[in-house]
């Protein structure tokens, strides 16, 4: 398609009028004089030195006494209001990972690195090379609390935020996924949260032109008032476009690109707005951020052009902690300093004060570090796309072998003068107390294997129908229909397939498969095992498409880290994932932690959500999940791969039919998962597979039903002899043993396929045939 990329009439210079105000360096912005007059004089470094003893509201800002003392020690004086705001944000759990850091180290230390890994943990997102010239980057992040407060905007900005992370690595965002968890399906508030969240994810992603290729929808009362809205984004980049966040090169210009800065999400620091802290501060400022997907779309296109023309030295998205985070992280990463003229930041509201500007979470902004001679080209590109670009500062050198300082002025007053690393890297780190929850032993003893089970054919039939119609297992098309899956024209598989598959190279057919999974009931029963089960499930979902899993990301949603029980769950889950990835030989490329998902003393179930990425050399070889119309009048043979054990604890069946949660979760054998993946990939490559679908929630019954419904093709299943006695048919149908999948093989190839399984030691059973067509019924005998 050479003409398409080469013929670009209407390049800049041809009078592209900015559609969004002015794109220019704004040394003297109109209105700034006015601001100085109307604003109370800011708290400056000078004043901080003069009023050393002034009391400050550090506790209200979430800083402990000892944390506040450390700030004073670092600065050798009391912090200014702006500095205090910055430390309170950067040293928050969300930004500093202070409770999780010591645990997360295992990911970097214990899981395999690989030559493929171009960027790993600590970057905005991990980057994995998948061909000589292409790399992919992917990451999942949470936007839980904002989505409970304001579901539409919370979820929308969740998508916006993760997309910018991916963009910051140099990649074009090419797909999103949305693992979602809500309270009980029939709770009135669930209707508010769910409809808003889904509309927000769709509203933002659809207008952005990024396809949604999968996700999760889970209902559980533990998420009442604490819904989990996680968002994953996948990006693709030519390897030479990989970007750094380091603000290298003293003299380089710091450019803010994108939306104006408003009072979004500054509720937390609003206490600083009043000059005296003893008066009751009205918490009137918004803690919600509103998204503008249109501006984000322009930001994407502008950044990609900037990468293409190699105009930036460093780039960082503005996310949770806004400018504070972007300025301090980019400088800290380079060991440089930075000089920022804060009054140059384009504002939505002229009355904003320095600490508000520094902590604003306004969306759709990026921070660029640009060599002076390339500044004009950057501004030109911004103008072409109609986004604001403003030079707000300059990189300054390290002095006397010491890292540089971040100095921020406001109309000539110095309001910030700090070592950037003290904000970005030297936050507090806690080894918080951990203790296994006292009730766990009792919960584990209360096994679901002892619950009454259906036995007669009639009871089994009823159970299948009841399970299929239950909130967690029922069809989710009414949600996924609200998402554009087609845009970009490379979506090969999307919901309800096991994994999303996206072609990333139209010439060679190279593609990637992605799945996100978590099972918090399993994690509640055993967080170590539950985390490994989530990993196994995501791995398996990728594998059944025929892809080779190569990398993992995660989003760890937990209650309060100050609760030793929660902290123990967290540590166990991390250990489980680190062990699991080490065993599977895949690196952890990044992740995200969300703590404090709890109301009062009751935390959500520990919910590690795992995303696994796989590679398909040619997406034409992908294996879909649904039964296809058979190749032969007798139907195509259906195999069940893997072993079925009596594993009902934590299962969907126990929950739906008995509201029961107890016992120990299914065993995990990651070696078996690898074997299953290898057999499926090999069989797919030689055309032995017509369909493959993994078994997870709801067991065999659910998977067979899903495979039937995909294309309206029926099936006749015959239980193996060893599962016909007593309630064993029930066990066969509803057990949630891991490491299993059902596959269909073209008639005539079943012997060859069985031989391969036997040879590689993968347990298999021929369990039935697809129906020759018309009836579309499922029969189990």
């Amino acid at each position: 398609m050479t003409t398409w990329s080469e013929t670009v009439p209407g390049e800049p210079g041809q009078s592209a009028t900015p559609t969004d105000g002015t794109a220019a360096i704004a040394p003297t912005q109109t209105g700034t004089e006015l601001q100085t007059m109307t604003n109370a004089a800011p708290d400056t470094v000078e004043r901080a030195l003069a009023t050393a003893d002034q009391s400050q509201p550090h506790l209200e800002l979430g800083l402990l006494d000892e944390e506040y003392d450390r700030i004073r020690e670092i600065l050798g004086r009391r912090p200014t209001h702006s500095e205090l705001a910055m430390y309170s944000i950067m040293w928050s759990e969300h930004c500093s990972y202070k409770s999780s850091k010591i645990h997360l180290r295992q990911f970097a230390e214990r899981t395999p690195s690989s030559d493929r890994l171009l960027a790993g943990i600590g970057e905005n997102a991990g980057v994995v090379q998948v061909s000589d010239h292409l790399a992919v980057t992917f990451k999942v992040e949470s936007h839980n609390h904002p989505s409970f407060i304001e579901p539409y905007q919370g979820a929308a900005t969740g998508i916006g935020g993760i997309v910018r992370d991916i963009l910051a690595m140099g990649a074009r965002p090419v797909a999103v996924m949305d693992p979602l968890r809500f309270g009980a399906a029939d709770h009135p508030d669930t209707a508010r949260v769910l409809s808003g969240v889904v509309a927000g994810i769709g509203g933002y992603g659809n207008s952005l032109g990024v396809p949604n290729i999968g996700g999760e929808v889970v209902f559980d009362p533990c998420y009442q008032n604490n819904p989990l809205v996680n968002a994953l984004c996948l990006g693709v980049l030519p390897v030479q476009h990989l970007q750094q966040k380091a603000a290298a090169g003293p003299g380089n210009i710091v450019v803010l690109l994108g939306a104006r800065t408003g009072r979004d999400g500054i509720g937390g620091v609003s206490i600083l707005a009043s000059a005296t802290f003893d008066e009751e501060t009205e918490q009137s400022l918004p803690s919600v951020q509103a998204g503008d997907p249109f501006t984000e779309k322009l930001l994407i296109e502008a950044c990609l052009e900037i990468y293409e023309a190699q105009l930036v030295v460093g780039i960082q998205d503005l996310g949770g902690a806004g400018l504070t985070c972007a300025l301090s992280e980019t400088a800290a990463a380079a060991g440089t300093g930075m000089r920022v003229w804060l009054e140059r930041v384009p504002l939505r509201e002229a009355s904003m004060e320095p600490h508000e500007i520094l902590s604003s979470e306004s969306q759709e902004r990026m921070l660029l570090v640009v060599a002076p001679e390339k500044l004009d080209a950057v501004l030109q590109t911004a103008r072409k796309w109609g986004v604001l670009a403003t030079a707000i500062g300059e990189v300054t050198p390290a002095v006397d072998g010491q890292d540089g300082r971040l100095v921020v002025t406001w109309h000539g007053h110095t309001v910030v003068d700090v070592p950037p690393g003290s904000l970005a890297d030297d936050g507090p780190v806690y080894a918080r107390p951990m203790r296994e929850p006292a009730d766990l032993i009792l919960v584990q003893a209360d096994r679901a294997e002892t619950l009454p089970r259906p036995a007669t054919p009639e009871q089994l039939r009823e159970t299948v129908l009841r399970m299929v119609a239950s909130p967690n297992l029922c069809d989710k098309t009414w949600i996924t229909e609200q998402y554009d899956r087609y845009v970009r024209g490379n979506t090969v598989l999307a919901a309800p397939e096991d994994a999303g598959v996206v072609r990333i190279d139209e010439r060679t057919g190279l593609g990637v498969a992605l799945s996100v999974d978590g099972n918090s009931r399993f994690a509640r029963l055993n967080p170590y095992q539950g985390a490994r089960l989530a990993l196994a499930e995501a791995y398996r979902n990728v594998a059944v498409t025929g892809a080779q899993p190569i990398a993992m990301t995660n989003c760890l949603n937990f209650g309060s880290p100050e609760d030793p029980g929660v902290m123990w769950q967290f540590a166990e889950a991390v250990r489980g994932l680190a062990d699991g990835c080490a065993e599977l030989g895949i690196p952890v490329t990044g992740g995200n932690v969300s703590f404090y998902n709890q109301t009062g003393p009751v935390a959500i179930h520990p919910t590690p959500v795992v995303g696994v990425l796989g590679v398909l050399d040619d997406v034409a070889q992908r294996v879909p999940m649904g039964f296809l119309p058979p190749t032969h009048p007798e139907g195509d043979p259906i195999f069940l791969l893997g072993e079925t054990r009596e594993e009902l604890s934590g299962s969907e069946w126990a929950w739906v039919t008995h509201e029961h949660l107890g016992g120990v979760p299914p065993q995990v054998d990651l070696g078996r998962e690898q074997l299953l993946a290898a057999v499926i990939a090999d069989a797919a490559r030689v055309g032995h597979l017509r369909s493959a679908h993994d078994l997870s929630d709801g067991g065999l019954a659910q998977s067979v039903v899903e495979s039937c419904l995909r294309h309206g093709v029926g099936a006749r299943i015959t239980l193996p002899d060893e599962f016909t006695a007593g309630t064993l048919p029930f066990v066969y149908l509803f057990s949630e043993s891991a490491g299993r999948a059902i596959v269909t093989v073209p008639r005539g190839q079943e012997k060859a396929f069985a031989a391969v399984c036997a040879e590689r030691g993968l347990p298999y059973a021929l369990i039935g045939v697809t129906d020759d067509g018309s009836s579309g019924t499922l029969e189990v005998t």
Partner: protein
Amino acid sequence: MARVVVDVMLKPEILDPQGQAVANALPRLGIEDVSSVRVGRRIEIEFNGDSVDPQEQLARAQEIADKLLANPVIEDFTIRLAEAGSERTDVPA
């Protein structure tokens, strides 16, 4: 028959991308002197029967707006009575 009008606007500090997009488009129409555009919703509610006390209708509309029409997290609203038709005649388009 009376009608109640509820105007719902984003709170001033909340980003209004629609208004911004409209404002940015105006120069193309040759209009250069607009300083701001905000886009909100106008909802017209008509009640059955003439007998109902207008104040009662207002109170009712207030409840509807609170629960259904506005999102208090990001929006403000105002309510007023409008004789059917009267509202819309100022400058008929």
